[in-house]
């Protein structure tokens, strides 16, 4: 491993200042991704600023302001604690299901909420320094574009990068219109709508998100909603646990009688960012919650896909997954168990 400086800090200001003065420094929280990347020589920071002592772990109701009645999730809360928190399980089961669909129990025990947002793609070309990758080394080319791209994007990719964002948690958060609260080096705070937090690769795939240098996630807010009875996270993957999504769907419905008042649909495993299926959502608003409507909505969204050599199956799979996730949401969103 490259030699690097390790420092611990006790307040947000010191943390953001350190990163503001050193472009080559990185925050260290759970360490489940950055340490792997350093071992493989993909990330090469010369300083790790350990933020794990900051008091940013709480999950608590929001009692004031625009999102009053919603919930605030601390950036340093562990994924496991967040998923199993009674308030999350009751009022935001989509988030709970999504988190538990990700990684392994061991990783979720270490990984933090903020770190989940900031994890890097698992594109194998990004992970292997002998192969080209514009995200790792701008200008070196995209290995996956004409390479092995079964796991890669079908929406919003560019010639520079076809990687996908790996998170499950973020699919739920984008579906639930979460807000990412960050603090910058001079103490200034801002709130970023979740949909604007991650970015598409364009000409700068090295940038995963819209954070400014030194900015630190302090919390994630989820506005109050009426989706708790009808939401479902469906993850289609090559094995039943500890595998990234081929396609995943976070679906949530609020009903007005037998008609859909609001539908939220987000897709994972399809784009450089958590992908909101807005066309499908708009189509469903005001319509009866029928499988036929779900299918039409799904097809409407998936027709915009641009597939690569090995991932054309994601169009059909994504269509089916949307229909199934919405159908499961209508049934109350419980995970199915096979009979014994």
């Amino acid at each position: 491993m490259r030699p690097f400086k390790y420092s611990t800090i006790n307040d947000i200001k010191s943390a953001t200042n350190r990163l503001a003065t050193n472009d080559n420094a990185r925050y260290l929280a759970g360490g489940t991704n950055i340490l792997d990347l350093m071992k493989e020589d993909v990330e090469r920071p010369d300083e790790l600023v350990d933020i794990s002592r900051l008091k940013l772990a709480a999950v608590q109701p929001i009692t004031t302001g625009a999102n009053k009645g919603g919930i605030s999730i601390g950036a340093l809360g562990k994924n496991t604690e967040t998923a199993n928190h009674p308030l999350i399980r009751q009022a935001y089961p989509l988030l709970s299901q999504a988190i538990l669909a990700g990684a392994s129990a061991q990783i979720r025990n270490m990984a933090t909420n903020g770190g989940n947002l900031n994890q890097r793609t698992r594109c194998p070309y990004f992970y292997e320094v002998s192969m080209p990758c514009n995200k790792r080394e701008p200008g070196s080319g995209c290995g996956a574009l004409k390479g092995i791209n079964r796991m890669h994007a079908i929406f919003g990719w560019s010639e520079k990068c076809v990687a996908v964002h790996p998170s499950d948690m973020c699919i739920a958060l984008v579906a639930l219109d979460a807000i990412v609260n960050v603090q910058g080096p001079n103490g200034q705070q801002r709130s970023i709508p979740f949909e604007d937090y991650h970015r598409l690769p364009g000409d700068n795939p090295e940038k995963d998100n819209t954070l400014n240098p030194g900015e630190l996630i302090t919390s994630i807010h989820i506005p109050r909603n009426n989706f708790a009875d009808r939401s479902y996270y469906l993850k289609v993957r090559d094995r039943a646990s500890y595998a990234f999504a081929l396609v995943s769907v976070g679906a949530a419905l609020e009903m007005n009688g037998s008609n859909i008042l609001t539908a939220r649909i987000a897709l994972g495993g399809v784009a450089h960012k958590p992908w909101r299926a807005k066309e499908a959502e708009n189509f469903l608003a005001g319509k009866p919650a029928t499988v036929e409507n779900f299918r039409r909505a799904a097809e409407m969204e998936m027709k915009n896909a641009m597939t690569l050599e090995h991932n054309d199956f994601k169009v059909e799979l994504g269509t089916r997954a949307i229909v199934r996730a919405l159908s499961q949401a209508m049934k109350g969103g419980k995970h199915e168990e096979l009979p014994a």
Partner: protein
Amino acid sequence: MSEPIKTVGQGINRVDGFLKVTGAARYATDYPVKNLAHAVIFKSTVAAGEILAIDTIEAEKAPGVLSVITHQNAPKLNPNGGLRGGGLLQETKIHFHGQHIGVVVAETFEQARYASRLVKVEYSKQTPRTDFEKLEKEASTPKDKDKADIVRGDVDTAFSSAEFKLDVVYETPIEHHHPMEPHSTIAVWEGEKLTLYNGSQIVNGAQSSAANTLNIPAANVRIVTPHIGGGFGSKGGQWANLVLTAIAAKMVNRPVKLALTRQQMVNSAGLRQRNLQRIRLAATKEGKLTVLAHETTTHCAMNGEFVEPCGDCSKVMYEVPNAKIAYKVVPMNLILPTYTRGPGKATGSFALESAMDELAHQLKLDPIEFRIKNEPARDPLNGKPFSSRTTVQCLQAGAKAFGWEKRKMEPGTNQHGDYMVGYGVAAGTYPARQRDSSAMIRLNRTGKDIKATIELAASDLGTGTHTIIAQTAADGLGIPVSNIDVRIGDSALPPAAGSVGSVGAASFANAVNDACIKITDELILKSGKQFPVRPMASALMASENLKEFQTRVDAKPSPEADNYSCHSFNANFAEVWVNAATGMVKVHRFLAVTGAGKILNPKTARSQIIGGNIWGIGMALTEESVVDPRYGNFVTRSFADYHIPANLDIGTLDTIFIDEDDPITNKLGVKGIGEVSIVGVAAAVANAIYNATGIRVRDLPITPDKLIRKV
């Protein structure tokens, strides 16, 4: 007289279980060696070409670095000394991506790894030969004489006139062994003597190949390997990392530890080759097979040939008058393929047993009935009688236990809500053999307390070798297991067979049993007495008032076994649930019925069987090593990308052993189960998926995308 001890056949706990669960069991790199330096291998980043220059100046200046070894300064080694796969730093030519091109030795692992990244290598690159889909057309007959065509009858004529037939290609991908313990070694020189702590399935083989490669006498090399964290064939023949550790230790004049990383495992210790298997199968309308042609096309390395015998099951499974087994191979810029659990049989049975299922469906026959109709009376290949054969028993006992009658003959007709349910069956086989093994027994008595030490250079992959040796000795000597000290995994001990090819249990147990008989004979002789009932060695130690006694035996397989065809057999049953929307498959229930002679320990045997079953399920559903042909590099280099089954993938696993007494195969009738446990598994799962969905997937693994493309 004490009660006779009877532990063989009992499912006693592992004698090394306590050491394992407390972490006290030592694996190769756990040995506490003083003054240890750490080595990291660095590898070629091109798949074909030549090294023009290696600049190690910066690496040598890095903190903690003791030495940087490349072809420029490596000692001369014998590249034909018995190590597999090349990468001994003796040449500038690059045969595959990830070929070892150097070693950095430093005070710490982290320093060595950092310095390895400061090495600058200049190559002349060639276009790599790594696109199997294009190159398979160039494949030709292997040099290996065992892979020469075997032909019986007239396949082409019989096939063209057959009414019920099938001519299809089954494909299996590259797989990796990926034992939990990656290949790792500690090398310690004391003068001319070298000790290598190293996971070695064949202890004496590791010793001779290390010695031959280093051009030193075998007597100067000691291999120590009491516990191994899995090998599955990849630690049978040894690879360059073994000797690179030794030369690193020599060059820095200190003990050196070298452990490969998971990512390095993809091109350091072999692989299971990708196979295209064309099967032509034909039968009469009554369901009698008339043709079986099994033709395999695969790849080997540019710097070596290895072809796994995919046609082996087709040689012995069914009575068929017109048969052909053939192979073609094409060299590619990939590491040398090697033995991988159930070599040729795991993959070959996927093709054969899928084809049997397909033809049974055509014939509207139950696939079990179809198999039983074609059961051979003798080995169809050589006409030898089987020493024992349990295929029919396995199929019938399994059908009963599994509830086979619940299977719907018509595929895609068993719907449970969103799931399609299917049942599949497949049979399998693996040769049963005993190999030469010596064993030493030392008896020590203190008062009434008699202890035995059993010594042989066997190895324990984690399968329970320590335990079955202790059980065999306990019964043979009349001493409780708790008083038996099993010493294995050391080339300084009497030479023994390897834990490879399912020969371990038969070879070790028979050697130890022979030694027990011999030591008892010698004690009787020493006593000068006549006994109405043959006494146990333990009783003789006491009655003759002996403090110490020892003997050694050099056990050999009986020549009679050569007159017979000796095999383990099995039948595998799978129930799958396929999600109709997502194509995700869950193996809800799996049953393996095995006829493998005497089961020395049903508990460890069950563990070994279900281990093979799980790998077979992984083979069917998830495991695949993928090469990007432009670079010749794998894109599946970690467990995040190479999907071995997780707990959630595996439903209920059941194991049945058929009671079988086969004194012909060997004296104890032990057949071995390590390999047969994976044979037929993937086919059973694939056949169950067909039964569930009506979709026949002939290329593994059967991932959701392959199913939804066709639903």
